[in-house]
């Protein structure tokens, strides 16, 4: 078992073994991150590869302060943002149309009820802009001001996209719950 520091040093030397170990140890975790930002699995895999290339060639910039895993995640999220900007030009936006007023059920969301796959699926179905803002705000913990700067959008856009993303996710999860209720 190599320590993180050994792996980092090895990768800086372009040591193949260390590169493989880094991939082996963190690709699963970072793939989980990419899946949150992607439309589908192939896109997530593409994103992951790009993130790892960045990681290998920029390891020298990791200062050693703060958790290594956190740094890896940050690079990956930045890659996802780059990806988002690049794809913005090609993809048609359907932000307004898929906004549904969520009817409010009475109960909250049982964690055991949904699998990680379920959550990835509802996230993947969101439009890229909503997904981006939701991820950055809810899971990465950025503030709307920071998100607006990162994505080059208005603060209010970030806020409204976030609240719409939430409404859509809620609706989707409740639908899914009904569906599961039928079949189980």
């Amino acid at each position, binding site marked *: 078992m190599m320590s993180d520091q050994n792996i980092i040093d090895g990768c800086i030397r372009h040591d193949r073994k260390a590169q493989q170990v880094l991939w082996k140890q963190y690709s699963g975790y970072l793939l*989980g991150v990419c899946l949150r930002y992607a439309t589908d699995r192939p896109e997530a895999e593409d994103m992951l*590869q790009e993130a790892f290339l960045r990681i290998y060639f920029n390891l020298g910039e990791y200062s050693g302060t703060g958790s290594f895993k956190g740094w890896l995640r940050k690079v990956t999220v930045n890659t996802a943002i780059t990806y988002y900007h690049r794809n913005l030009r090609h993809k048609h936006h359907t932000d307004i149309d898929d906004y549904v007023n969520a009817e409010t059920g009475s109960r909250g969301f049982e964690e055991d009820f949904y699998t990680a796959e379920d959550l990835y699926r509802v996230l993947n179905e969101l439009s890229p802009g909503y997904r981006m803002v939701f991820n950055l705000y809810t899971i990465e913990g950025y503030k709307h001001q920071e998100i607006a700067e990162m994505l080059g959008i208005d603060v209010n856009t970030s806020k409204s996209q976030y609240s719409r993303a939430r409404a859509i*996710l809620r609706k989707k*999860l409740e639908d899914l719950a009904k569906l599961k209720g039928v079949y189980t």
Partner: protein
Amino acid sequence: MTEEEKDTDLGNLFRNKLEENEMVAGSDLTGRFMRRLDRREFLRFNPARFNIWYLAAAAAGLTVAGILFFTSPRNRAEVPGNQIPQPEMTAVAVNKDETDSRQNDSTTPEVTETKTASATVKAEAAPGGVTDRPGAINTPAGAAENDITVKSIGQNAASEPLTSAPTAFIKASVRTGCVPLHVRFTSPGTEGFTTVWSFGDGGSSSVNNPDYIYDLPGIYEVTLTVTDTRGRLGRATIKIEAWARPKASFEISQNNQLNDDDKVLFINLSSGAVQFLWNFGDGTFSTLSDPSYKYRQPGRYDVTLTAYSENGCADSLTINDVFTDKASFIRFPNAFMPNTGGPTGGYYNQLTDMDNQVFHPVASGIASYNLKIYSKAGLMVFESSDMEIGWDGYYKGQICSPGVYVWKLRGTYRNGQQIVMAGDVILLNY
């Protein structure tokens, strides 16, 4: 459940399920990625990974050059200039792009320099009247090199371009970091040469691969000079940025000694920091600059403050045993003088009451409390289960006669310890 709670709930669901979730990157994906990485490494030309592929590429280049040379005799003079450098130029261009995205990378100039050198060698090896051409090859490569911050310069390149002037490369284990910054410098390919390092802060070394520690923050220009056996020089420079570390410091307000219901105030005295993380020692954290915190249980806590600078440099300070059980105590005075103006009801404030007209304990950390006071005759003149109320010296509206009274206390501290105490108190002449 309100809308707001539902939203928090939704956030928690995604955070808990997905934040640390790991997926499996299949062997197929792994294979694809490793091949992609290999291609990228190849294009970046890394001496550490020099292998048969570079030799093969060089051989292929020579072969193509040879074929072109022999098949187009009319273009004799142009061939080496136009054809050979092309693959090299693409490689340089690729590296240049990478440099823009990652500023200050030391590996890039190594690449460029080596490429130029190999182009020169190839031109020399190509048959027939080509030796006067390397200048043409060098020029575009040299132009492409201009943007690169770190340069390695062969001193004699101008006068003797075809013989090998020593080339200096610097590799640093880190380029930026917090002081004390430990940097491991290496200079691959300079074995057998004399190396002189100057670390930019007055320090120097003649070791091949020195370790150096920067104690003070600043931007340092590190220079490596290599001298080969024939006295020719090669030089390379690189910048190292050492960041200042913040100083974590704090004090704890002491006014909580008596009244343990107060929040504890933490006074932040840190310098050079923009972010803070407090660990109150009971599993609770705060990121405020000057937090106040109310402990649920009296006890001993180690409080740690970690201060972070803009660059993420950290410093932390721990104060051990911030609150000991001394916070749980009870003491009684042994004399008091009632107010003769009439019963006061016995209300008091133990922090501000200096009149000594009410008999009451000074205490902290009390969970339950029952005080009984008897006269010498055995009559119970006072009972209270309320810490806020002491004895004002009256019994049924009548002031009691001066003399000795006996009290008995039963109760518990918050830490669960039982209290049983008894004593006497003198009601002074009024």
